[in-house]
């Protein structure tokens, strides 16, 4: 009951969605849309488990005065604040006339989004500008032939995508300028490599999906 039934459910669901791809006749053509809605609803329930886990761990840190208990308080406070405004604005938006969404500009939820969430998210993303530089400094060294190819390709594409590259090769006719090399590397060499990887991924993914549907990979089921 604990293992055999779930594996059968997985098998039936897998086969159903493979067949649905080939049958346009209703209801099969609706499977993909139904699944996307079901998944969204299940995920909306599951996030309660995650949030409760985050709160539990933070509370334990505070009660047991662990090293970073101050930050646990901050996590709980910011979580509760945005939760309060999210529900408040959402509820108020539903019953307002004309109704508005909690995301609309001007709501307090949007204020948190614009002034707290977005700067944190954008700045964390922007740290990549520094990390990409330090990674290049460390990794692009001509250790062997493969590393040299990696280095040269990055070098030429980087130079080609910026006007400086064309200034250096200005004396060449238009189609042999640095930016055209970069475009050629991207359009031909990069396409070839991407295709080999994509085909490989497709085959690997089909094999993994099949192993899961046939119940050979049952790790996700856990113990009895």
């Amino acid at each position, binding site marked *: 009951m604990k293992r055999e039934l779930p594996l059968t459910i997985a098998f039936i669901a897998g086969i159903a969605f493979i067949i649905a791809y080939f049958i346009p006749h209703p209801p099969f053509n609706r499977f993909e849309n139904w699944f996307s809605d079901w998944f969204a609803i299940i995920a909306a329930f599951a996030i309660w488990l995650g949030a409760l886990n985050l709160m539990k761990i933070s509370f334990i840190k505070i009660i047991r005065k662990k090293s970073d208990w101050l930050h646990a308080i901050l996590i709980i406070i910011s979580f509760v604040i945005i939760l309060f405004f999210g529900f408040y604005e959402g509820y108020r938006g539903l019953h307002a006339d004309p109704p508005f969404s909690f995301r609309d500009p001007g709501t307090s939820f949007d204020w948190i989004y614009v002034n707290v969430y977005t700067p944190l998210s954008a700045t964390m*993303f922007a740290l990549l500008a520094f990390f990409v530089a*330090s990674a290049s400094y460390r990794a692009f060294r001509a250790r062997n032939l493969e590393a040299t190819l990696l280095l040269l390709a990055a070098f030429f594409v*980087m130079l080609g*995508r*910026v006007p400086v590259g064309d200034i250096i090769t200005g004396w060449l006719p238009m189609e042999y300028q640095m930016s055209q090399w970069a475009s050629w590397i*991207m359009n031909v060499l990069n*396409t070839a490599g991407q295709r080999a990887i994509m085909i490989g991924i497709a085959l690997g993914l089909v094999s993994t999906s099949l192993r899961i549907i046939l119940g050979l990979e049952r790790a996700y089921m856990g113990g009895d």
Partner: protein
Amino acid sequence: MKVKELLAAVIIVLFFLLCYFFSPKPVQFSPTVSVVVIILLSLAFVYVFIRTFQGKFIGRRTVFVFVGVSLLLPFFMQFSLPVLISPEVRSVYDALEELPPGSKVLASFDYDPASAPELQPMADAFMKYAFEHGLKVIIMGLWPQGPQQADQSVQAAFAENPGLRDSIKYGRDYVNLGFQAGNEFVILRMGESFKAMFPTDLYNTPYDSIPLLKNVSNFSNVDFGMNFSAGKPGTVEWVQIASDRYKLPMGAGNTAVQAPMAYPYMKKGESGRKQLIGLLGGMAGGAEFEKLTKKQAKATTYLLSQSFAHMVVIMFIIIGNVAFFREKKEKE
């Protein structure tokens, strides 16, 4: 909290307060000052080069300082670099030029404020171009913040060319259908019917009462698709479903990191049909499109900062290799 950490925090706060209250607004280097700054930067590089050659290798934090400085200083300088048009950007522009006035363009904004520096300038240029050439724009978004970014592009177009404010009417010349969760399944369902996916637009007016959408039931009634994408869902999903399955001619604007993924789709298949007609790749793509639509703006000024930062990265790759060969020689 160690004293060193506190000291560093105090210095940072003081620096920014000084800038806030006492610095002239805006700061603009005269050409001579700009040249001096560039010379100083180059000298710093030469110094690092020599130290590495002598075997004293620099650490990550030196790289960070150089990148930070080279990104910031060009903001205050005043000269822009020549921009060369790449074929991918050219084909998007030509595809838009071929659309007769009154054609319907589906513009999907699939990015968030974090990727705005790269995609907003090209989105603004696209919106202004569409309004000025009488293209009817149907805006939607697969990312929650997409439609808001699209609204910024519309306001930027109105600010850039006030004449548009009265000739362009919401509902007749452009409409914003807002965000819809569901990633690629949104595109799938739009293949059957836009109305099923967007019963109302962003401002809750029902689909059928919008004049622009009167005869638009799905992709076959739209003449061109433009997608601004910073990840998943984005251009790959639009190509896989809207272009492959529903044959919608597609152009796209991508962050530079997403662009390589889209290149395979631009190869002309045997049937002569390109899965993706063209691509605006990153800031450079934005600057090229701005040049084509004759609207030099933020993308062009940012490009100078970016060129400096690029040069810094390239210099550090060279210095990194010098360090590697120096190390190898020491081992032998």
